[in-house]
């Protein structure tokens, strides 16, 4: 394996500048060829709102998330550190190990492709902090609004097949990932993020080791050449630039597993509370949620016409059973038509045609309900210190004229 060299801070700065500089120059060439008056600042991405350029974090504009299968260009980016550069897929190796693995493995991407059943699944990934911008009082971190979610078609192998090949000991508790990204401070000793999921989730049908998305390789900002994709859990559990998987005999204690990161209070707290680390628990499956991608908020609509409305609904480790829409601030609700997921772990599409009784200002609210009987709240649920799990119903404004 071509070992990825550890970047000194100086190298990191240079590489950062090359990345952005090259993208900035490339835009002049690609703006015309794309046929859009929309030069991509990040090669291969468009329709994203950049929250932070160092580390790079960007979310999709909600009205562009219209496709059932999220195009690669609209898949959000959540980086914690500096992505690897000079990636060579043919030299990439994935190490399978940890206390609870019987036979450690060292696999190339070719090995993965040839030894295990290849699967293509549409799996939903949502950042645990999607919706953080609505927190009151506000909380630190990237102020995600709506677009840190997507459901591309991923190509890879099941985590389960690889772990069974390596052999699991009876004391296996947690699957942990390790990635090739480097720490922002340049400290080579620091792992950027090393999270994962309980072994039961790792062995589920909707947990993949993926090398491709949609019609190509993974996008460099989405983990090229290899990543974990664990549907329905905070996307931080789906490690990018994957170099290692460890099966632990304890709850994994890697970077961003403890403290306040990706953890919420065990018991509900009043907004603004300071919560001790010992009173926090790790986030599991993401709560039920929906997104209206059509119409774009602020649309002007002719009262005499039906308004076609559509979007997506999703939930971790369960299924969405209904989506209801309101145009009167939740006083009455009407059921949308809802499709079954393409596969376990994929989001579901809903649609409806709405009519409005009079001209004026309306909001369309969408509220999904899952197979556990849980629905989206109207207001921000369960304030927590780091701003996770805001699944309040989505609202779009309509001016009926």
């Amino acid at each position, binding site marked *: 394996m071509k070992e990825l060299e550890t970047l000194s801070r100086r190298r990191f700065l240079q590489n950062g*500048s090359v990345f952005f500089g090259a993208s900035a120059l490339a835009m002049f060439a690609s703006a015309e060829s794309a046929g859009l008056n929309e*030069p991509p600042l990040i090669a291969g991405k468009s329709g994203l709102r*950049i929250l932070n350029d160092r580390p790079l974090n960007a979310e999709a504009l909600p009205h562009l998330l219209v496709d059932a299968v999220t195009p690669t260009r609209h898949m959000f980016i959540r980086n914690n550190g500096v992505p690897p550069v000079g990636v060579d897929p043919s030299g990439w190796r994935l190490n399978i190990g940890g206390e609870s693995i019987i036979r450690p493995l060292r696999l190339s991407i070719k090995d993965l492709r040839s030894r295990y059943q290849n699967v293509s699944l549409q799996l939903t990934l949502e950042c645990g902090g999607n919706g953080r911008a609505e927190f009151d009082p506000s909380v630190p971190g990237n102020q995600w609004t709506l677009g840190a979610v997507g459901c591309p078609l991923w190509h890879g192998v099941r985590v389960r097949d690889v772990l069974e090949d390596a052999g699991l000991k009876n004391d296996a508790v947690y699957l942990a990932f390790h990635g090739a990204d480097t720490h922002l*401070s340049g400290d080579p000793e620091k792992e950027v993020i090393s999270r994962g999921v309980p072994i039961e989730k790792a062995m589920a049908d909707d947990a993949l080791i993926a090398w491709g998305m949609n019609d190509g390789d993974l996008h460099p900002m989405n983990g090229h050449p290899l990543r974990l994709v664990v549907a329905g859990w905070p996307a931080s559990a789906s490690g990018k630039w994957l170099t290692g998987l460890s099966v632990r005999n304890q709850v994994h204690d890697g*970077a961003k597993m403890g403290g306040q990161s990706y953890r919420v209070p065990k018991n509900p707290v009043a907004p603004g509370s300071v919560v001790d680390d010992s009173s926090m628990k790790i986030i599991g499956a993401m709560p039920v949620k929906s997104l209206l991608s059509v119409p774009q908020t602020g649309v*002007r609509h002719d009262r005499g016409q039906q308004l076609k409305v559509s979007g997506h609904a999703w939930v971790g480790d369960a299924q969405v059973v209904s989506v209801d829409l309101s145009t009167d601030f939740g006083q009455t609700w009407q059921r949308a038509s809802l499709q079954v997921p393409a596969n376990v772990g994929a989001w579901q599409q809903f649609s409806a045609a709405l009519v409005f009784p009079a001209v004026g200002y309306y909001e369309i609210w969408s509220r999904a309900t899952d197979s556990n009987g849980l629905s989206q709240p109207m207001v921000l649920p369960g304030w927590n210190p780091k701003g996770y799990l805001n699944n309040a119903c989505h609202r779009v404004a309509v001016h009926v004229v």
Partner: protein
Amino acid sequence: MWFRCRLALTLALALVACNAVAAQVVPNNELQVGAGDHLVRAHCLVCHSAQLIVQSSLTRTQWLDTIRYMQRKHNLWPLGDQETVILDYLEANYGARYQSSGRRKNLPYYR
């Protein structure tokens, strides 16, 4: 090289900002001018962009917690006497914003 690329990036950002239908929306990446901004630049922007600060609105306690978190987890060094100046700056320019009513925020009207 670095500065030339920075120039290219700045131009790119400026172009995108001027474009009403820009596909990639780039927020303000400049700190407010104010007493202590040079210290924030020196201590914080070594590792991350100003956007991480600019998009925040936190209480003084939350800012201090954030500094401690950066020191505990991300190699930020002790700030000494400058910590108070930095906190004053962050509180004054990126302090807590509370919503005034129980209703969720009005939807932005863009069209």
